[in-house]
C-alpha cells in the first residue's frame, strides 16, 4: 500500500488503537510544516437523515448505533432533549439513575482507552497484551475496572453495547434491590483500585507540553457535570444548549468526512481534560486531596494529562455511582408517561470524549422532521490539527520519520478520537523537500 508522492514518500503503516479510520498528511518544506491535515475518511452513515420520519420512541435505539463505545451518551442526550420539549419532569429516581448509568459508560470507556489504547505508548509497547507482560497487575486492574463499568451499564440497559433500558420518560424497568446491593459491594471494592490507578497514571512520565487552548465543557451548579448542565468555556462563556449555534459553527473540509467545529472561529478542546479544567471546583474533597498529593495541578495546558484526567474521572464516576445507589429504593414507576408535541428539542451531555449536542425538530405526532448531532470528535478535530503543528515544532521536525509518526500518534490518542466507522488505518504520509 505504498502511496506515490511528489518527493520523499514514506508510508508508515498505521495508527492503531484509535476508534475509527483516519490518516495524517504531513509535508515538510525546508524544515517548515507546509501541510498538516488529519483526514477522516470513515464513510458517513447518515444517521441524521434516516432518523427523519421515525417516532420519538425509536430514537434511543437508533442513535445508540452511532457508537458502540458510548451508546449511553447518545441515548441520554436524545432523551434529555425530547423530554425537555415534551415538558416531561423525570421522577427523581430516574434522574439519579440516568447519571449512574452514564457513570458506567465513563468507567468502561475511560478504562478501555487508558489501558487498551493509550497507556502502551508510554511504556514502549504496541498493545495492552504486550503491556500486560511488563505491567500485568496494572493491566488486569484496568480490565477489571472496565468490566465493572460494563456491568453497571448492564444493570440498567441489559447489555453495555447498545443497551435497551432507556425510554423517553425514564427507564423501561428498575433493577431489583438485591442486584443494586451486589453492585454497591463491587463499586466499594473498586474504589481503592481506582485510587491506585490514579496514582499509577500520575507517575507515568509525560512529554512536557504547554499550549494555550480553549476548554469547553458542561457546567452544573452543584455537581461535576455529566448528564446535565450548561455549556461553559474557559473564556467565561456560559450558555444553554439552545444557544449553541450562536457561538459554535460546523464546516466541512474536503479532507474529512467528519465536520469541523469552531468556537468563535477558533478550535477548542472538549473531553476529560477540558472538563477537569473547567469543573475542578466540583470535584469531591477526597479527589482534590488525592490530586494535590500526586502533584496534578489544574487547569492544565498539557494535553498529555488526558490519560490522568480519565483516571480521575473513573474514580469520580465510581464514587458518584456509589453515592447515588446508596439509598436506593424501588420507584413507583421507572418511567412517566409522555405526550409528544411539535417543536425543537435540544440536548447536551458529556460523552466520555466530550460535549455531545443533539437537536431534533419534531412534528405533532412525535416524529422527527430533522435532526442534527454534533459529536465530540468533530469538535476536537480542529484542535488536534493545531496541537499536532505545535507539538511537532516542539518535538523537532528534524527527528526521524518513525519518531515523528509515533509522536503524532501519541498526540492524537490523547483526544481518544472516536471515528467509529471503516478501518482503523492512520496512513501517514511525510513529504520532505
Amino acid at each position, binding site marked *: 500500500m505504498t502511496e506515490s508522492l511528489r518527493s520523499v514518500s514514506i508510508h508508515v*503503516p*498505521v495508527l*492503531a*488503537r484509535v*476508534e*475509527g479510520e483516519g490518516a495524517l498528511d504531513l509535508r515538510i518544506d525546508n524544515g517548515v510544516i507546509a501541510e498538516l491535515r488529519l483526514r477522516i*475518511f*470513515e*464513510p*458517513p*452513515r*447518515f444517521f*441524521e*437523515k*434516516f432518523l427523519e420520519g421515525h*417516532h420519538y420512541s*425509536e430514537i434511543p*435505539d*437508533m442513535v445508540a*448505533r*452511532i*457508537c*458502540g*463505545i458510548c*451508546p449511553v451518551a447518545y441515548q441520554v442526550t436524545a432523551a434529555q432533549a425530547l423530554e425537555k420539549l415534551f415538558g416531561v419532569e423525570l421522577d427523581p429516581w430516574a434522574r439519579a439513575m440516568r447519571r449512574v448509568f452514564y457513570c458506567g459508560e465513563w468507567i*468502561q470507556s475511560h478504562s*478501555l482507552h487508558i489501558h*487498551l*489504547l493509550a497507556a*502502551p505508548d508510554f511504556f514502549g509497547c*504496541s*498493545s*495492552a*497484551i*504486550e503491556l*500486560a507482560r511488563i505491567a500485568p497487575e496494572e493491566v*488486569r486492574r484496568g*480490565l*477489571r475496572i*472496565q*468490566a465493572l463499568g*460494563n456491568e453497571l451499564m448492564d444493570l440498567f440497559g*441489559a447489555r453495555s*453495547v*447498545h443497551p*435497551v*433500558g432507556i425510554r423517553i420518560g425514564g427507564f*423501561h*424497568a428498575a433493577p431489583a434491590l438485591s442486584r443494586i446491593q451486589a453492585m454497591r459491594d463491587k463499586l466499594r471494592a473498586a474504589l481503592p483500585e481506582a485510587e491506585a490507578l490514579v496514582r499509577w497514571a500520575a507517575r507515568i512520565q509525560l512529554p512536557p507540553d504547554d499550549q494555550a487552548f480553549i476548554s469547553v465543557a458542561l457546567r452544573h451548579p452543584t455537581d461535576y457535570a455529566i448528564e446535565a448542565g450548561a455549556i461553559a468555556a474557559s473564556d467565561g462563556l456560559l450558555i444553554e444548549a439552545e444557544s449553541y449555534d450562536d457561538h459554535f459553527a460546523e*464546516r*466541512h473540509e*474536503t479532507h474529512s*468526512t467528519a465536520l469541523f467545529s469552531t468556537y468563535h472561529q477558533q478550535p477548542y478542546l472538549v473531553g476529560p481534560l477540558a472538563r477537569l479544567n473547567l469543573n475542578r471546583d466540583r470535584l469531591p474533597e477526597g479527589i482534590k486531596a488525592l490530586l494535590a498529593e500526586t502533584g496534578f495541578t489544574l487547569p492544565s495546558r498539557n494535553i498529555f494529562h488526558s490519560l490522568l484526567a480519565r483516571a480521575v474521572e473513573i474514580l469520580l464516576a465510581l464514587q458518584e455511582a456509589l453515592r447515588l445507589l446508596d439509598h436506593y429504593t424501588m420507584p413507583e414507576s421507572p418511567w412517566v408517561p409522555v405526550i409528544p408535541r411539535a417543536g425543537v428539542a435540544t440536548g447536551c451531555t458529556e460523552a466520555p470524549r466530550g460535549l455531545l449536542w443533539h437537536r431534533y425538530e419534531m412534528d405533532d405526532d412525535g416524529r422527527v422532521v430533522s435532526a442534527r448531532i454534533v459529536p465530540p470528535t468533530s469538535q476536537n478535530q480542529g484542535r488536534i490539527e493545531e496541537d499536532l503543528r505545535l507539538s511537532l515544532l516542539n518535538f523537532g521536525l528534524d527527528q526521524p520519520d518513525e519518531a515523528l509518526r509515533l509522536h503524532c500518534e501519541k498526540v492524537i490518542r490523547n483526544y481518544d478520537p*472516536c471515528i*467509529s*466507522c*471503516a*478501518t*482503523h*488505518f492512520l496512513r501517514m504520509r511525510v513529504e520532505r523537500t
Partner: protein
Amino acid sequence: MNVASANPSKPRVAVHKFSSCDGCQLAFLNLGEDLLTLADRVDLVHFAEAGPLDPDTEVDVAFVEGSVYTPEDRERIQHIRRHSRLLIAIGACAVSGGIQALRNSADGGDWVAQIYAHPEAIDSLEHSTPIAQHVKVDFELWGCPVSGPQMLVVVNSLLLGVTPYDNADKVCTECKRRNLTCIMVSRGVACMGPVTRAGCGALCPSLGRDCYGCYGPAAHANTDALAARFTHQGLAPQAIMRRFQSINSQAPVFLAAADKLRKRND
C-alpha cells in the same frame, strides 16, 4: 471448520473492521481479564483497535465487523478473503448491511448534499451491503451487537474443531427458557420476538419492553402473521413497516415484509 487440527500451534486470528459503530469488536475488548486468556490461546495478528497490525498476513480465522460501504471496502474484503482460511462475519452490519443500509431505500446522493458542503469529496457507495454479497462467508453471527458469550462460543468451537452452533430459532424460545411472561400476549406489546433470531437472551422482554429485531430474522419467520397481529393490536401500517425497517432493514425476510406492507398501503 477445524482450526485446531490445521495448526498445531496457536491459530492465527485477525479482526477487521468495515463500516460500523465498533460495537461488535467490543465483544472481544470487553472480555475483561478473559481478553488476556484469549491472547494466550490464539495469535492475534491483526486487530487494529487492540494494537496488532498486519492486515496482509495469512490467517486461520478472520472476524469481519461492518458493512461494505466504500469502493475501497470492496477491494479490501477480497484481499482479506484471499488471505483467510475461514472468514466469519460478525454483527448486523456484516450480515445484513446494518442500520446504515436504511439509506439503500432512499436517495443517498441527495443525503450527501444535504450534510456536506463538498459532496464531491465524499467517497461512499450508494448501498451498504453485507460481506456475503462480496465474498464467500464461512459463518455468520447475527446481532446488533454480537455479545461476548456468543463470540466465545464461536472461538471455543473453532479451537475444538467443531462447527459453531447456529441458533436461528426465535427470541420467543429464549423467553420461555427464562420463564418470562409473554409481553405480547399478556400486555399487548408489539414485540418482534416471534420473527427475530435468538442469541441475545431475550434482553428486551426481560425489561418488559418490545424486542425490536436487532438480531435479524429467525428461520421460518412468519412475518405475515406478525404484521396481522400488529394490525389487530392497533398499529398503523406505517408503524408496522418501521418495525421491519430498522437495524436489519436489508435482511431479505424483513425487506420482503416491509415491501409487502408498502404495496398494500399504496
